[in-house]
């Protein structure tokens, strides 16, 4: 154990520290975003009233509050569930985006871009149109159907990309694009052939939180928790997966099993996100890249922080979507795309010629 420090006396290899401080700061940021999200809306409600309503709901405040029932409904049944759903969906998309990027060694992978979300929405559409009552109290078929659609899409995209020679990156994107377009086309056909009273489905496909309810968050939570636990559990292995497959295997990784577990988990998380909020693009792309730029590529740091950034970003995007053109709402996908597409181009230009096409 000689020479553990170099001539400057610095540690050469710093032991990896879990980014608890960053996570704590992240959670505080999410909390602030959430408070802003609940306090601001198209109807003006004084901040004091907002807090009174929240405290009374949390049993922290027992005095009688003299507030209009409308305000109470707006805070407790509209804004709050909406912010919570945006938080969960944002975190899901951030984490699953980072997972897909790591898994496919592709900085442009995003649940939306590689066709998973389109597949998931096709699954959900089939349930919508089949006329099966898709919610039984607190059990819903939607996440399961979305999951089935998503997993089929991602596996097809993946198979195509490994079947075709070595340019994994572009092939995966193109395959995802093709499958996404195909799934969207099928969704379109299904909708054309059904009765026109399905306009809600159209706007569901556009993505958004206008219909957010408490029950939605409760319904998707278990899927998220299970998927995210597996992903976080595999976060160290995901670092190894950044090497070429045979190299990773020579380091003792069972790459096939790892890929299967991570694809299934990430798709489960994506499906949960898609099942009640529809297609929302770019969150899964933006969040991991911000973290990469700031703190490098260790997936143990990247995954939880991507979830945090995704959550905060989507809460704010939804806030913008519902307040910018008062009194009407824009689909939140418009906001994420407005921010996301320039970002996408930036990432594309930055990665071009280096890791993208390989050596």
């Amino acid at each position, binding site marked *: 154990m000689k020479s553990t420090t170099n001539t400057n006396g610095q540690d050469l290899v710093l032991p990896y520290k879990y980014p608890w401080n960053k996570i704590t700061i992240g959670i505080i940021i999410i909390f602030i975003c959430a408070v802003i999200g609940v306090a601001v809306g198209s109807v003006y409600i004084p901040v004091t009233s907002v807090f009174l309503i929240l405290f009374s709901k949390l049993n922290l405040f027992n005095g009688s509050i003299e507030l209009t029932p409308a305000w109470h409904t707006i805070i407790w049944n509209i804004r709050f569930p909406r912010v919570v759903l945006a938080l969960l969906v944002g975190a899901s998309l951030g984490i699953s985006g980072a997972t897909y990027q790591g898994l496919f060694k592709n900085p442009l992978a995003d649940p939306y871009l590689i066709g998973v979300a389109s597949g998931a929405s096709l699954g959900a559409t089939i349930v919508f149109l089949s006329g099966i009552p898709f919610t039984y109290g607190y059990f819903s078929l939607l996440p399961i159907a979305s999951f089935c659609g998503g997993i089929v899409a991602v596996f097809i995209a993946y198979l195509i990309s490994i079947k075709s020679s070595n340019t994994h990156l572009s092939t995966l994107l193109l395959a995802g694009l093709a499958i996404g377009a195909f799934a969207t086309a099928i969704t379109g056909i299904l909708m054309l052939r059904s009765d026109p009273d399905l306009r809600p489905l159209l706007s569901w496909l556009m993505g958004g939180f206008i219909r957010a309810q408490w029950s939605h968050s409760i319904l998707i939570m278990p899927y998220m928790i299970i998927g995210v636990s597996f992903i976080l559990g595999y976060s160290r292995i995901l670092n190894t997966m950044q*090497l070429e497959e045979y190299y990773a295997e020579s380091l003792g990784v*069972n790459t096939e099993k790892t890929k299967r577990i991570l694809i299934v988990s990430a798709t489960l998380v994506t499906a949960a996100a898609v099942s009640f909020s529809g297609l929302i693009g770019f969150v899964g792309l933006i969040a991991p890249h911000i973290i990469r730029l700031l703190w490098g590529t260790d997936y143990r740091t990247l995954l939880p922080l991507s979830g945090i950034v995704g959550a905060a970003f989507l809460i704010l995007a939804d806030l913008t979507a519902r307040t910018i053109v008062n009194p009407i709402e824009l689909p939140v996908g418009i906001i994420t795309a407005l921010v996301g597409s320039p970002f996408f181009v930036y990432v594309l230009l930055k990665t071009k010629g280096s890791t993208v096409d390989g050596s």
Partner: protein
Amino acid sequence: MVLDLQNISFKYGNVNAIQEITAHFNPGELVSLVGPNGAGKTTLLKLISGTLKPSSGKIYIYDQLSHNLTNKKRAVWISMVPQNPKLPDEISIPDFVMLGRNPHLGLLQWESKKDFDIARKSMSLTEIDYLSKRKLGEISGGERQRTMLALAITQESPIMLLDEPTSNLDISHQIKVIKLIRKIHEQKSGFGVTILAIHDLNIAAQFSDRILLFSKGSIAADGTPKEVLTKNNIESIYGSEVTIITHPEHGTPVIIS
């Protein structure tokens, strides 16, 4: 026996890359695989490391059938330095070297202080401590080779496989890297096996205990450098006339044309 190859063959499609090779490797040996391009050196290394599965024949590692080992178990015993792998540019050197600890860690287990010390030690052994702030995309070919070597050392496995560790390096770096490999091998004090595929016969002659000369997927000669690198062997396999002299200091054969 550390490593035992019994009658192994391998086909790429219809092409026989390896034909019925049988070889035994004993503790403490540094073995060079030499031969013309396409003779099967790299393929044999891939078969040993488990990247490829033999079409027929058996590979035993510490008397266990390699085929039955998990990737993890195999990685505890065998480390590998591949030739020119595609590496992710944005990973930092210490993070990359730390990946070598993977076979020793459980799924939910993260590196302990001990693991960091091992990685630190291998970085100073390969003299890449000064790279600790750099990323894989920012280093030269020689540094890259030593970094991968550091990762393999961090793996702490008795068997180390190296595929053309000196290719793409200039002469001073070639000697530096090969000396380093010899040093690492000697640090295992007689129980390790190091196998390297190398095309430079003089380097192989100078630094190896044993040389396997490959020709068209089978072993043409097996023995000490002096036994294998004869005028006859080289002329028949490489097909060009050579002269062999003895190195004035080391007493090893030197091939000149």
